[in-house]
């Protein structure tokens, strides 16, 4: 089917950072940050024209350094945050900064420059104040999902820092922090902010553990010790079920947790043959789970058994009213089948990032280290199956 064919876009540099432009709900737009030590790094703003299957790109220069992580503000299209490396004095320091850009033509702020390549408008607030030794390297920045884009957490070594952004995101004030104490060098690898509970919870991963934090008091609320056999690489919250959390890691597994009972995972997937670097729930249909791995594959799974959607939608049944009555038993009789929907093998290198579009729930992008960005759609048959 022509419509289901993947669209591939190549970057010139290695790349690890990918995010949808969260605040944008009309256009399908992804931001990709590159990694190059020798040249100026770039942020590619990639617009995908769904009608014509055409990709339009805008390249912004990111001179600060190579980008390890990128995240877009949920409220303001023009604001994004990157974590980048600076090489100075023979040392590598990873910093994080909120930066403004002016990618969208309709964004209303920024330049209307005709060049495809231009510098970022304003370097925004630096999220690692003070000497680098104070907080160490920043691994990740997470925005408050539902707020006005004014609150951000960043993870630096063993610290979790909460920031308030002020004056158009140009200044950041440290609003709270907590740190992890323990034996050895503890280091956060990643973190997500939960969209539930009025945005008062966040989760972080360090080594094999996953921890939950209350952002009001900056205290730990739960901890999944040894969530994975090896390093945890990524986390995501189920957007519709408030206690559900997905994690993935170097043991090639994806695990689904109920944070109220952290002793056992609710479900475990083992579809990849190498480390799983990224896991993402679909924003609207949380049975669709996307994972990317360094075996070069992207796997789209249907986790119907633990999704928020009533399973009846997935059953072919002619008589709907009849089915309504039957649903309780039906659920107990034959639990919905979890299955792999598709495995995408367009990448030839490790896939470090995957994400869903914020505008079209049936569309997702994946990024491999060799700079290849692939945009794919959920198979049409499944889409209709879920919708109808």
């Amino acid at each position, binding site marked *: 089917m022509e419509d289901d064919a993947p669209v591939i876009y190549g970057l*010139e540099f290695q790349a690890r950072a990918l995010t949808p432009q969260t605040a944008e709900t009309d256009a399908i737009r992804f931001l990709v940050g590159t990694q190059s030590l020798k040249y100026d790094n770039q942020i590619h703003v990639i617009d995908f024209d769904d009608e014509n299957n055409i990709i339009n790109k805008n390249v912004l220069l990111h001179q600060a350094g190579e980008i390890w992580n990128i995240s877009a503000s949920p409220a303001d299209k023009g604001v994004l945050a990157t974590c980048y490396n600076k090489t100075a004095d023979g040392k590598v320091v990873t910093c994080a900064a909120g930066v403004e850009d002016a990618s969208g033509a309709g964004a209303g702020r920024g330049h209307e420059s005709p060049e495809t390549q231009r510098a970022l408008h304003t370097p925004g607030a630096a999220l690692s104040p003070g000497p680098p030794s104070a907080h160490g390297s920043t691994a990740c920045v997470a925005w408050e999902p539902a707020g006005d884009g004014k609150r951000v957490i960043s993870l630096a070594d063993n610290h979790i820092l909460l920031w308030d952004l002020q004056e158009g995101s140009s200044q950041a004030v440290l609003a709270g922090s907590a740190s992890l104490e323990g034996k050895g060098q503890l280091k956060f690898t990643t973190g997500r902010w939960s969209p539930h509970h009025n945005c008062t919870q966040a989760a972080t991963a360090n080594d094999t553990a996953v921890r939950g934090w209350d952002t009001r008091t900056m205290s730990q609320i739960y901890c999944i010790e*040894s969530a994975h056999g090896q390093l945890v690489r990524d986390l995501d919250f189920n957007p519709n079920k408030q206690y559900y959390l997905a994690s993935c890691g170097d043991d090639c597994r994806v695990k689904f947790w109920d944070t109220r009972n952290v002793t056992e995972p609710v479900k475990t997937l083992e579809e990849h*043959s190498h480390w799983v670097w990224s896991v993402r729930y679909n924003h609207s249909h949380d049975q669709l789970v996307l994972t990317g791995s360094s075996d070069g594959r992207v796997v789209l799974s249907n986790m119907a058994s633990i999704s928020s959607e009533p399973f009846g939608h997935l059953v072919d049944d002619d008589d709907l009213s009849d089915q309504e009555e039957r649903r309780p038993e039906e659920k107990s009789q034959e639990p919905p089948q979890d299955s792999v929907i598709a495995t995408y093998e367009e990448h030839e290198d490790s896939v470090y990032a995957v994400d869903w579009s914020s505008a079209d729930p049936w569309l997702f992008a994946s990024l491999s*280290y060799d700079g290849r960005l692939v945009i794919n759609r959920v198979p049409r048959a499944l889409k209709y199956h879920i919708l109808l």
Partner: protein
Amino acid sequence: MAAAAVGRGPGSGPGDSPEGPEAEAPERRRKAHGMLKLYYGLSEVEAAGRPAGPDPLDPIDLNGAHFDPEVYLDKLRRECPLAQLMDSETDMVRQIRALDSDMQTLVYENYNKFISATDTIRKMKNDFRKMEDEMDRLATNMAVITDFSARISATLQDRHERITKLAGVHALLRKLQFLFELPSRLTKCVELGAYGQAVRYQGRARAVLQQYQHLPSFRAIQDDCQVITARLAQQLRQRFREGGSGAPEQAECVELLLALGEPAEELCEEFLAHGRGRLEEELRSLEAELGPSPPAPDVLEFTDRGGSGFVGVLCQVAAAYQELFAAQGPAGAEKLAAFARELGSRYFALVERRLAQEQGGSDNSLLVRALDRFHRRLRAPGALLAAAGLAEAATGIVERVARERLGQHLQALQSAFLGCLTDVRQALAAPRVAGKEGPGLAELLANVASSTLSHIKASLASVHLFTAKEVSFSNKPYFRGEFCSQGVRESLIVGFIRSMCQTAQNFCDSPGEKGGATPPALLLLLSRLCLDYETATISYILTLTDEQFLVQDQSPVTPVSTLCAEARETARRLLTHYVKVQGLVISQMLRKSVETRDWLSTLEPRNVRAVMKRVVEDTTAIDVQVGLLYEEGVRKAQSSDSSKRTFSVYSSSRQQGRYAPSYTPSAPMDTNLLSNIQKLFSERIDVFSPVEFNKVSVLTGIIKISLKTLLECVRLRTFGRFGLQQVQVDCHFLQLYLWRFVADEELVHLLLDEVVASAALRCPDPVPMEPSVVEVICERG
């Protein structure tokens, strides 16, 4: 016959009158001949086959009864040529002559016989005349004797009649005397305790007394007798109730009472009540043996005691009852059956309690013998009292026990297997004393395999006792069918193999999370064990089972192939897990070494880093370990070269073609393009791919995992110039030593190339080291 026919032929013309009776004789003779022929087995067919025989009415048959010479002659004249006529004429003449001479001979021979016969007749005539005179004399004498005899009997007639009358009177008087003496006799008998005699007397007199009771004297006797009989009955009952004197006497009492005409209904109740008392006593004593604090005798003794005590008494009671109350009909039998059922069930409850105590024990032969006794004992009452269902219940108990026993054997096997594994773990974990090697893996494997197998065999042997021919219940349908197929084969053997696989698989699942609590060597060993099971042991065990227990049941059983597939799958999973665990160990080492180093400010490499040596050492150790249990496996042919040559290929042409260009600071596209093009031609490397059952495949898996980790870690770091050079040195070192372990050395090349290429990309100032220097450093280190 031809002689007879021809002899008559000339004498009697056609149409002669005497032909009729004479003609029948040959017919009859022929018939008799037919019978004889039949008798001697000459078949009719044979006779019919002869051309001359069959039709006696044929007028041209010379020997036939209806032979007509005219017709014959006509026929001859008409049909035969002259020569044949002449022939037949001479033939005929010859025959006639032969017949004539035969006749003459016959006449001469018989002549002498006629003469001697005439003499004999003449002599006989003389003798008879003498005999006639003597007979006359005899007749007169007899007449005289008859006369005398008549006279004697007439004289004795009178006396004879008197004697007869006297004899009749005498008998009557004796009877009367018996009647008059009866009361005293009865009393005496009662006093002496000869109850049987008394009852017999009473029985004899009863009818007479009944008949003549209208006469006052007899009436008195009858009354007396009745009084005494009542007393007798009372005494008998007393004796019966007192009991204790054994079943036969009891039975006698009851018999006598019945003879006295006591009501049978009541007696049979009482009889059963009494029997119940005795049986309950037996049960009590059995229960006491069970006791709360068991210094219980062994189970064999128990069932023996139960068998001889309870079952014996039950048999006696039942037999006596059936003998005594046979007249009671089905109602009585029903009563007895209910009685036996009730007590039997209590007995069974006790036996089951006792057997339950035995379940912990391990001596199967004792148990089987006990069950055998138990079952055998119950066959007698079972036959006696089919309605009570005792035999069925006993079989039921035996079956239950057998089933439980199977369950126990399964458990015992499982725990023995776990015990073996614990031993292995201990042996593996035991610190190696210097100079004294612990038992090798192969040896441990052999130990586990042999001890498991011997346990299985022991279990089979001990379960086999249940089906031994001499055991009384072995021919029950359960033991012939279901026990063998479902019980022994399915639940015991198949169940054990399954649980073994399950146990082994559990090692794959849980501990991987906690970072390999299971020693990898154990995984390897189990994997090999499962593989051995797949190839040989399973089919061996199942064949053994099928042979020992000739399975007659038609119910479906798990085929060998299914089990083998399961075992193979387990072996595969274990081995894959082993690869993962070992790969992880090396990965961790590599990761730590990459993560903890400051690659930007590192010094110019002088040595291969120690961790790489460690990696090679560990890989060699793993190689040795796997080599103990698994075969070598196949490599790609190209790897048969020495390391020297591969090295040169690697360092010169490969390096030039591969990542040298990426160091030249040309367009950044080139690097990507090159590596992409490179990838187009190389296959995708599946890092955690399933392994095959050989050493090379296992090590390939481990090395793949390790190198991929190295690649990913390198990509997360930034390198200075010397950092890159160090990576170069390290990779070359690995290349030098690792190729020999893998199936396809190209794979190691590819991965290591990619590591170096990635490191070059992650280096702001990539200046590679001279290949010759790299070589020198590696050779030195």
